[in-house]
């Protein structure tokens, strides 16, 4: 049994070491990257002052609005459709690969490996490779988002199946139901709410990622922001950012309301 004084001393040392370690990494890191902390800090108010002056939408920038809106809706539709297609593919793969519904150990390991591989290939790499073959079209953006989402959703769905469905599955198996009956009558109905919640999260995430994909592949809202930004039409760029904020927060609110009902 430790004495309280000894415990507190040990705890103090532990905390000091961690703080020193993290602080050391920070200082060394800023030195390596030549990051000037003071100038960086000063840049924040400067940046916001600049934003306030240049990004403020003027009466003139209203005429950009229809075009921005059209691209933004297109981006949201792309994000939704890529997520839904990814979800349909992922659910079957996750059923094959999860520990409770999976076929055998080899397939389970394979599915895990493939999902992890897809998830960790940078979105930039997907966008650029696909851009090379599929040229500058919405389909490129769709595929890039799809491949990225599949990696995330397979892993998420497998975890959901393992967490939530194993007991219901056992109950149905005990009645003598066959594999497909178990899947369609026990597993899928049980995990549907959690799956929907993940799909909604992925849609929000994809709308944000679509901006990056758009800048790289020249599609959707990212492309239009890039054009305005690089041609110094900052009021229009500000308008674009404002529209993105409204849509993303709107989507977040809607999905939170849906989650409240279903979970």
């Amino acid at each position: 049994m430790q004495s309280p004084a000894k415990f507190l001393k040990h705890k103090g040392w532990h905390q000091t070491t961690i703080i020193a370690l993290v602080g050391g990494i920070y200082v060394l890191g800023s030195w390596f990257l030549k990051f000037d902390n003071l100038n960086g800090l000063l840049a924040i108010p400067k940046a916001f002052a600049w934003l306030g002056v240049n990004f403020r939408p003027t009466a003139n920038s209203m005429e950009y609005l229809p075009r921005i809106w059209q691209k933004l809706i297109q981006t949201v539709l792309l994000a939704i459709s890529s997520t839904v297609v990814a979800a349909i593919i992922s659910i079957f793969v996750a059923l094959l690969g999860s520990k409770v519904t999976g076929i055998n150990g080899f397939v389970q390991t394979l599915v895990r490996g493939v999902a992890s591989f897809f998830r960790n290939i940078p979105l930039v790499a997907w966008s650029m490779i696909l851009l090379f073959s599929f040229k500058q079209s919405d389909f490129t953006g769709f595929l890039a988002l799809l491949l990225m989402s599949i990696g995330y959703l397979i892993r998420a769905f497998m975890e959901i199946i393992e967490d939530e469905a194993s007991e219901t599955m056992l109950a149905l198996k005990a009645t003598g139901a066959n594999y497909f009956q178990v899947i369609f009558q026990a597993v899928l109905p049980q995990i549907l709410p959690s799956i929907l919640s993940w799909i909604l999260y992925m849609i929000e995430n994809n709308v944000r990622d679509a901006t990056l994909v758009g800048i790289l592949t020249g599609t959707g809202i990212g492309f239009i922001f890039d054009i305005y930004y690089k041609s110094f039409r900052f009021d229009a760029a500000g308008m674009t950012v404002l529209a993105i904020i409204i849509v993303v927060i709107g989507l977040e609110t809607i999905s939170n309301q849906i989650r409240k009902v279903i979970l």
Partner: protein
Amino acid sequence: MINSEETNTIIQKPKLPDSPEIKLHEKSLSRTMIIAVFIGLILITGYTLTHLDTAGVQINQAFKELITTLNQMFLQPNAGTDGVTLLLQALGSSLLLSILTTIIGAVFGFLFAVLASKNLTNAYLGAGIRVVMAIIRAIPTIIWALIFSIVCGLGTTAAILGLSFHSVAYLTKAYSESIEGIDNSTIESLKVTGAKFWVIIFQAIWPTIVASFVSWTFIRLEINFANAIAVGAAAGAGGIGYQLFVASGMSFDFHETGFIVYLVILVTFVLEFIAVKIRRFYLNR
């Protein structure tokens, strides 16, 4: 003697009880909602896919090209003209960038989370911080980096500020959700002893949430590494992302692209491994 007629009257067919039909599914708002949302999503997907602009690309041809490219990338990777040393340097600077921004995000995120949690501060301050953070989070990281690059010039400073902004907003939300999950009696009992605000934070709140603090911070580290690559590619902030962009979009050297992708995957595996170890350490304490 028992004749057959009597047995007939004794053994009667039992009457079926007048039971209502067994319902397989209970009707509830939740079920209706799930079905409605799924139908809606599938309709939107169908509409989008049939109206997708493919810019007149021959899909079969394109897929064939894609397979050639993937073959070059994953089966024949090499360091290309840049050389291994340069690529490793770039990888290191991207990794440092993500660690640095995660540290900034964690420190400021925790401060803001304490000020924004409903069970610790007054409602107006909390609501104000939450709204501001929601707005910051709604703007993609890449746009933050582009905005800061006007003031600081293209380079690491802009990338660090851009990534930090998003990290702070993300972690504030994550941490404050963990803080709000704390049992109120813990806080109340410390308040009764007359403990000051920051004493409560560091003696009651911090030890309770440290495990989830660590998990969220490492999740953000992984996201920040992905974002550091993205910012390097799309905002010219340097690092491995820029090399990736040049190799795949300018010099079309897919062997080098493959090499870079393998490097990135290796780093994310190592990060995941460390995260799992540290998380287990804090959960078992």
